[in-house]
């Protein structure tokens, strides 16, 4: 059963620490998205990649966030340094061309 896998599922850290979230897209999918979900802002698109190349990261705070795809099976989202306002659920999703977007279970981040 193909699915998007995210780690960690939960992360509690202190302000100023580095946080790295990982995502394994569905094999064969060529587009990977990072979304952030909060009560106040809803679902925000942070960045997305096609064929491992970044297409749009305009939704991502550049000073502390970075997203990469070291290879076709791994996408990473890094926050350094983390702040309490970064507390949210971060979802990774993947699809093939314009097809259905498949979401991972999410990484719930709490920054104290």
């Amino acid at each position, binding site marked *: 059963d193909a699915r998007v896998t995210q780690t960690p599922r939960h992360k509690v850290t202190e302000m100023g620490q580095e946080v790295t979230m990982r995502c394994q897209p569905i094999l064969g999918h060529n587009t990977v998205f990072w979304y952030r979900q909060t009560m106040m802002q*809803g679902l925000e698109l942070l960045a997305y990649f096609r064929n491992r190349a970044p*297409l749009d990261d305009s939704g991502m705070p550049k000073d502390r966030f970075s997203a990469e795809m070291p290879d076709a099976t791994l996408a990473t989202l890094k926050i350094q340094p983390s702040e309490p306002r970064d507390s949210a659920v971060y*979802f990774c*999703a993947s699809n093939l061309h*314009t097809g*259905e*977007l498949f*979401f991972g279970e999410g990484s719930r981040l709490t920054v104290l």
Partner: protein
Amino acid sequence: AQSVSQHNHHVILSEAASLELGCNYSYGGTVNLFWYVQYPGQHLQLLLKYFSGDPLVKGIKGFEAEFIKSKFSFNLRKPSVQWSDTAEYFCAVTRGGATNKLIFGTGTLLAVQP
């Protein structure tokens, strides 16, 4: 900029009541339209999608949506809701063509009372 509006932020219904959730988008060109559902504590799952053809789209679990191009709308409906439909519902849009950047609405939280 392209945007998606969901008018109802919080809806409370009794079981067997009919449901209609509104969704409007701002982009004037060709669009692909989606409704996703997020059950409590879970990730988003696709309910239904519209790319072209019949503007009345049927999805899973008895949901349907109607694309009305002149109104830039894609409202979600279900004739009779169940307690298990309690969830958050998101409308989403991508522009037709090469890009597949999916933009979500703010979501509608549906609570169905038994």
